[in-house]
């Protein structure tokens, strides 16, 4: 009786979980499916296996330019937002200042602001300033939306830092800079790596802001969008999407792996250092 009672809800839980996973990931699965499908039209039934669409990607010059642009934008945004995030996280963890809570929530606001609003606002602002649209403006926009993520990730890293460690270093004759280099940096490194990987990933697949703020040079998502107008290009876009999907997942796994590994090395509970994934 007792076991029946127990088995019943757990069975439904399993059903629910599976349904949920299908709902989440079925559309994503379609991507690689059609990427390897031997037909120009995206529809069932599948006609045969091919890798030719990946070959097409290899020969598209415009795509390579877009990839380069995306990498440049992604790397710059990741580094800039992580540096900014580290400063904010450190200040929040270490100092008390008036209106701290208000200021911190204000900084985190772009997390929930509709991106289209941010994009339009930025565009208007840049027009007013007379700044020409280029990859630089895209980077600025991406830094704006990536920094809140960086702060969220780095806050837990800085919060977990025992203040007496810094004092001990200082007490042992080390300078402020030396303390940062020899104690603080190594200890928040997993958070920094995690933040770099995640902000890079965000920037890499961000579309709206890139679409509004880019000039003649396009980033990868903007390029993909422009290709959707040509039905014949659709399968190769699917192939490209598949590559990006795999890369994104790999980056996220890498970020989490880094965080856990260093947490283990320091003998700290992995969840205690915080993390995103």
């Amino acid at each position, binding site marked *: 009786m007792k076991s029946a009672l127990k088995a019943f809800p757990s069975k439904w839980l399993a059903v629910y979980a599976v349904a949920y996973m299908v709902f989440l990931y079925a559309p994503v699965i379609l991507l690689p499916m059609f990427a390897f499908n031997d037909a120009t039209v995206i529809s069932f039934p599948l006609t045969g296996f091919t890798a030719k669409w990946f070959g097409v990607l290899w020969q598209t010059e415009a795509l390579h330019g877009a990839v380069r642009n995306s990498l440049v934008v992604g790397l710059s945004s990741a580094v800039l937002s992580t540096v900014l995030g580290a400063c904010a996280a450190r200040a929040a963890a270490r100092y008390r200042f008036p209106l701290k809570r208000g200021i911190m929530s204000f900084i985190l606001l772009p997390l929930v602001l509709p991106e289209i609003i941010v994009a339009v606002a930025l565009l208007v602002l840049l027009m007013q300033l007379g700044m020409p649209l280029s990859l630089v403006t895209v980077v600025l926009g991406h830094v704006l939306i990536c920094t809140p993520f960086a702060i969220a990730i780095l806050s837990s890293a800085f919060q977990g830092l025992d203040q007496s460690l810094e*004092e001990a270093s200082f*007490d*042992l*004759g080390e300078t402020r800079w030396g303390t940062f280099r*020899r104690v603080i940096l190594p200890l928040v490194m997993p958070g920094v790596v995690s933040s770099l990987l995640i902000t890079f990933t965000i920037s890499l697949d961000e579309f709206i802001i890139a679409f509004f703020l880019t000039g003649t040079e396009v980033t990868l998502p903007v390029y993909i969008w422009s290709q959707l107008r040509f039905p014949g290009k659709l399968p190769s876009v699917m192939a490209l999407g598949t590559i990006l999907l795999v890369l994104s997942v790999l980056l996220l796994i890498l970020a989490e792996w880094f965080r856990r590994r260093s947490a283990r*090395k*320091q*003998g700290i509970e992995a969840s205690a250092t915080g993390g995103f994934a």
Partner: protein
Amino acid sequence: MTTPLPKPIIDLTGITKSFGTFQALKGINATINEGEFFSLLGPSGCGKTTLLRMIAGFESPTDGTIVIAGQDMAGVPANRRPTNMVFQSYAIFPHLSVADNVGYGLKTRKLPKAEIAREVDQALQMVDLGGLGSRAAHELSGGQRQRVALARALVMKPKVVLLDEPLSALDKKLRDQMQVELRQLQQRLGITFILVTHDQEEALTMSDRIAVMFDGRIAQLATPEELYRRPVDRRVASFIGVMNFLDARATGRMNGHLALDIPALGSIELPSAQVPEGLELRNLETIGIRPEMLTILFEGSEQTEHVARGEVTGTAYYGDMTYYSVRLPGHSEDVTISMRNTAGRSIVPPGSEVPVGWGADSIVLFQ
């Protein structure tokens, strides 16, 4: 043989510290001597840790001066003071090995690698951690972490080692052992140690001198023995060990003696040597007497100077000792009497009438 005059290493003059409207320290004056084991003892919030952190250079006094080894420390940051600290949390760098932790400070001095390695080895030997240099910090037990923190401070050869409740995280047995080891190490090295603790037993067993602090002030600064025998006020008396307080009245002063009436024990005369200076006789309301200075007289016990009668109301057996609660006539609270459990002496059951012996020289008067 004459003992050399103590040489001051730290001079604290008129130190105050305010955090907003809260006054953490209200005028601290003290001199700490070279080679001394000095303790700051007090309940939490009395300002002892703030004072220690000021000596280390992590806080600056609102007012007053700190002189270490003849040099005024105003404006000298922690990394340029001749002090090193053992933190309450030990603050072992979690990403470094034991040897790198201990050698951390030496590396800032830009010493050659071989010399650092040698010094680190010596320091680890000193704290009985020889051969553990390559261990990772998180592989250490609590006691070992404490030793690493100590070695890390000692290897810097500081003039003063500051210890912030270093034993509070250890279990009782290990704590007792570390007390002895710390004391021996300090005596062997001859370095000044300043210990912050709220544990009176720890302070008594380890220190040369103790400053008892309450509410940002030093209530009494004395050797452990003097603190225990002649606490200046009721607060110090009840913080250090157990003290029985009895009502008393001064009835007069004659040829060098002070006549006292203690309703619970009787009338006595005390020699003036036992009367603290500046005692206002009018204000005298209470005297103190330690539990071990009262004895329950058994048949064949040694005679005592005075005898009062009391009734046992309760006992607590501690193995080597038994603590009796005894009601004395004319005194509302029970007094505590501790008796050593010697061979063939049985425990007196509650309800028994017993003679209580005491001596005038064990009476403590407060300012």
